């Protein structure tokens, strides 16, 4: 064996003797993969095109998406629409919506513009919702991926860690963390991420455990890929669909958590959020119910929109499940 005796890898550009003549002579003509794709039913792997088509044919998901885009646009345009501090007293207190053209949605008990509050509140609520989800995703992936991939004692240790966090009711843990750390947008975001990551970690772990057993992971190991590359490049892309779906719902629950904190007076006192508006309007529930109802409606619709989008993504990214549901 001359080749194995030399041992050294052949240089990159050496092309060894071609055996193509014998191998492919007969197969060549019928082998245009484009033809192939047309002829065979598509293998149910979500690809950009198919997933997008499924999503754009789903009216509920589109409605959710449109509503979220509107909220997002409003949040971005807040400094333009209402350049003044939304916490500033600008008018007579407790003007009902529609009474005064200057304050279309009225004012609260301190004379603050409710419309300005809702618009600026959207910034805080969405920021906290998305950022907290990112924190939760990062932590969840960091714990769930190695637990699911390596198994064994690493899995046992990490699962214990997840269980410790899950043993305490999430919201109580959140209140404790925020109370200790002084409420600010940053601490609230981190705290919400800290109590929601175990959900992601469990999901990621389950996905990784299942995909680890697939033959293409075996194949990746056989050609010498390292663990990190297998985790990030081989398994993660295949585990993403359910994670994305869960993330969209997690944004909704993070918004709810932030609102609940603010309602309890544990929000960031320097910014207005939907939750803090409800909290402030609580005392006037009987006389000026619009103060709680308006931010409440906005929260409900945002959360609903995120859930509709999550459902739509689920159908689009997990075509098999979607197909079963249709039957």
């Amino acid at each position, binding site marked *: *064996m001359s*080749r*194995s*005796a030399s041992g050294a*890898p*052949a240089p*990159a*550009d050496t*092309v*060894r*003797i*071609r*055996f*193509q003549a*014998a*191998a*492919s002579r*007969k*197969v*060549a003509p019928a*082998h*245009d*993969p*484009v033809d*192939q*794709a047309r002829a*065979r039913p*598509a*293998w149910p*792997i979500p*690809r950009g095109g198919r997933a997008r088509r499924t999503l754009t044919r789903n009216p509920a998901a589109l409605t959710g998406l449109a509503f979220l885009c509107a909220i997002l646009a409003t949040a971005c345009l807040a400094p333009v629409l209402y350049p003044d501090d939304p916490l500033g007293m600008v008018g007579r207190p407790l003007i009902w919506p529609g009474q005064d053209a200057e304050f279309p949605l009225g004012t609260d008990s301190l004379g603050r513009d409710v419309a300005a509050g809702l618009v600026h509140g959207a910034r805080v609520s969405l920021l906290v919702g998305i950022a907290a989800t990112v924190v939760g995703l990062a932590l969840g992936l960091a714990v769930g991926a190695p637990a699911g991939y390596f198994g064994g004692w690493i899995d046992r240790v990490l699962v214990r860690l997840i269980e410790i966090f899950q043993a305490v009711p999430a919201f109580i843990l959140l209140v404790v963390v925020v109370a200790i750390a002084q409420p600010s947008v940053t601490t609230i975001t981190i705290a919400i991420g800290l109590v929601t990551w175990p959900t992601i970690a469990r999901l990621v772990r389950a996905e990784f455990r299942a995909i680890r057993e*697939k*033959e*293409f992971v*075996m*194949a*990746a*190991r*056989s*050609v*010498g*890929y*390292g663990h990190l*590359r297998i985790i990030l*490049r*081989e398994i993660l*892309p*295949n585990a993403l669909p359910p994670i994305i779906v869960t993330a969209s719902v997690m944004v909704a629950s993070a918004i709810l958590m932030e609102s609940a904190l603010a309602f309890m007076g544990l929000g960031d006192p320097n910014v207005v959020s939907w939750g803090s508006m409800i909290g402030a309007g609580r005392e006037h529930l009987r006389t000026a119910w619009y103060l709680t109802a308006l931010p409440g409606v906005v929260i409900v619709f945002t959360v609903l929109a995120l859930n509709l989008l999550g459902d739509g993504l689920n159908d689009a990214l997990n075509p098999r499940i979607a197909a079963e549901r249709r039957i």
Partner: protein
Amino acid sequence: MATLSVSDLHTHYRQRGATLRAVDGVSFTVEAGETVGLVGESGCGKSTLGKSLLRLIEPTSGRIEIDGTDMGRLLPKALAPIRRRLQMVFQDPFGSLNPRHTVGEILTGPLQVHGLRDRRARQQRAIAMLDRVGLPAASLTRYPHEFSGGQRQRLGIARALILEPDIIVCDEPVSALDLSIQAQILNLLGAAKAELGLSYLFISHDLSVVRYVADRILVMYLGRIVETGTHQSLWAQPRHPYTRALIDAVPGAGQGTGRAHLGGELPSARQRPAGCRFHARCPLATEQCEREEPTLRSFAPDSAVACHHAEL
């Protein structure tokens, strides 16, 4: 000189407190340029054996040597250059290619990991390899689901060949394919071997396929090799009753001559019978077979059988 040499390999699993001896003391060699066929029924441990060789499943004990270098003792870093000399073609052409990678990524990834830095050179090698296995260069940007089963198996072979290995473990490479495609893939493997001087360990449950491709055959039953022989001798004169039963069970082989088929089923490797592993299903079993486990006895070069009653 032996290219691959395996001695006393064991791979055991712990399963619900019991030990499953999937591979239970297997020794063999694969010489340079040789195709060794490994046949047995599902559950006999042949697939575990193949994966243990590449350490995709960690063997429990034993030696795996490539040209005298013991693979079993190497740390992952030192394993890399050895591993590229031993590659694998998998059974499932659908499951063994990552659905989210393009063919280009699938073929150039191994080169990148094994230190080929230049992106263009990797690309060129991938295109040359596609050409060799009979696929157009345009396949590079396509995803596995755009290909038929046979084409995907070509991709699997391309991935195994791109690192220029010496030995390829083919784990049921044509079992999932239609008959008319099987011949294409077998011919492709044959051509690759002829021109690159490869060796194959060809694992299959299909005796007719192994009969066509293998120079030497190992018959495995419940974690052990029960008979080895050359392709001239084994089919003509099987010595082990299990080998005989396997050959008889090939449908169409007897053309309905009313021969007796083997009774019973493969027992679980967890509750391995005492004595000869095959005695419960064996037509020749005697009391000796229940007590003593037969060892492989060599009766000709490249031929050995593990049966008390085999006529040597």
